[in-house]
């Protein structure tokens, strides 16, 4: 097993409801993703998938437990450091692409670089263009998101997630909003990027068929991970 890109040790997350009652949503999650792996996270709605993804994406902090990204501990660090760690290590792909409507495809792909104040605009533009052609949209670079189909928008979102060459990409229902054909295309694209560039993927999905095509599968039920074997048997049933 190669070096872990992500380590979760006994991660718990509680939300306060009202003033005194606390509800634990995640009950001690242990999870290790090795660098370059291709992983699926499944589970019924309300099982805590989104919460887990937000924790991994450093958008929320766990109540207790250890979370390491690319060997960096995330406990007791400031909001600014978290933001920096997130920018350097994680690319996001969301169900509803979330492209910025005021910017064209190329600018949307370049946005992470713009946020991080790139030093070489020419190099950033070239890189963004190569990413656009990698997702098959080289000719659409000047189009606004509203002029593109759902599948194309999702491809741009993937290209954007790759812009800063993060070692880990988190995809939250990346195909959830697409028809079967487009969903299959997007899945293949991610798999291809994983294989050619060695970027680790963690894909949250409802689609068990897509999940079955992933290298590792994690199944979340009521805030706890079930064993892959259980998952496999459940899948057989």
């Amino acid at each position, binding site marked *: 097993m190669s070096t872990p890109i992500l380590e979760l040790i006994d991660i718990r997350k509680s939300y306060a409801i009202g003033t005194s009652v606390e509800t634990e949503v995640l009950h001690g999650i242990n999870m290790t993703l090795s660098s370059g792996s291709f992983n699926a996270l499944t589970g019924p709605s309300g099982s805590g998938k989104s919460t887990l993804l*937000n924790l991994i*994406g450093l*958008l*929320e902090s766990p109540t207790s437990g250890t979370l390491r990204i690319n060997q960096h501990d995330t406990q007791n660090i400031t*909001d*600014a450091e978290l*933001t*920096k760690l*997130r*920018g*350097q290590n994680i690319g*996001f792909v*969301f169900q509803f692409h*979330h492209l*910025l*409507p*005021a*910017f064209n495809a190329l600018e949307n792909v370049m*946005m*992470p670089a*713009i*946020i*991080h*104040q790139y030093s070489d605009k020419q190099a950033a533009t070239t890189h963004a263009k190569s990413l656009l052609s990698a997702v098959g949209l080289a000719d659409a670079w000047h189009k606004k998101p509203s002029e593109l189909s759902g599948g194309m928008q999702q491809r741009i979102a993937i290209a*954007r997630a790759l812009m*800063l060459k993060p070692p880990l990409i988190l995809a939250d229902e990346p195909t959830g909003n697409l028809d079967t054909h487009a969903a299959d295309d997007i899945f293949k694209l991610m798999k291809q990027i994983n294989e050619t560039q060695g970027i680790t993927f963690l894909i949250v999905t409802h689609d068990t068929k897509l999940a079955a095509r992933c290298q590792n599968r994690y199944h979340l039920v009521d805030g706890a991970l079930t064993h892959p074997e259980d998952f496999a048997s459940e899948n057989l049933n």
Partner: protein
Amino acid sequence: MPLSFEWLLAIRFLKEGKMQSWLILAGVTGGVAIIIFLTQLINQLQGTIIDRVLSSQAHIVIKPTEETTIRQQNTLITSALIQPRGQRLRSIDQWENIVQLARNTPGIKAVSPVATGPVFVRHNLASKSVALLGIMPTEYTKIVNMYRYMVKGRFDITGDQTVIGTDLAKDLGVTIGDRIQVTTEDNQQQNLTIVGLFDINNKDLNKRWVFSNLRLAQTLLNIPGGVSNIDLAVVQLFQAKQLAQRLKAQTGLDIESWMESNSGLLNALSNQTVTNNLIRVFVVIIVALGIASVLVVSVVQKQKEIGILRAMGAKRAQVLRIFLLQGAIFGTLGSTLGISLSFGLLTLFSLIYKSPDGSMLFTAQLDPKLAIMASIVAMIVGILAALVPARRAARMDPVQAIRS
């Protein structure tokens, strides 16, 4: 460019919300234009009024102290009624020293001793009660520039020559070259030759002022070698009161500045200034509220985009700066447009509204200091107004923002 991301986002977001941006911009432009227009208008009008009032009078007048009757103490017989003493024309004691003192006082630019008193002028059967003004022309014209008001002849009062107002000339039926007879209270008489007519834009003064040289007036008014008052002009108009008080303390004489003799006018002007300031403050508040409310709406609309930017690694400070920049952009653009608009309004008004005599009531000038101040204030107000929405955007939790 360290702020390139913030600039890019600020400008794109503004372009995206075109309608909102135009509305805000119109609000700031209107506000700045109103403030500059009003201020410029009132400053100029006040300047014109003060100029008109003060161009025919001294800024400070020094007079001898009034003679008073003092009740004697500790006597067995006391009168029940003490009446004020009748005043007669008197000279200022040691007036040469006082002229010297005034000349050496910093802030005073001209000093003119004057011998003035009531006389009758006669020509044929017409007789008028007037004020004889005995002056030293070189000094007096530094206070009231008579050369400017001459409509006929010249301002020359050497020997027995005199200069009178156009209205008095009309009443007496005289013109240049005619001789008029001056009679004083103690029946002294003197003939004067008219060599000039003036129009000082004041009918009352045009009927009342009869100029002669100082020496002649001293003799006629029976104060040989003396002066009845000393007229002063100051450099800073609004320092007149303070300078008058200082001289009063030094000399003990009766000294009054234009600010006291025209207190009604001064009150009106200061009320006008207060009103203008109130309007300015309210306009600034309204514009600030306008900017803030539109930006608040814009922040709510951009919630998702802000969330996604934060997820991609944008710092809170960067998000904050995007919206502060927008406020600054509105302030700067709005003040630039507002200054141009106010200049247009001033030009228009200067063409429409004129003085009764047809001259310009005010000119379309723009005080660069006022324009710079307005731009700076507009930018600061823009940034301050954007502060609340900007902080709201920066505090936004990316998870909530994306989900909502």
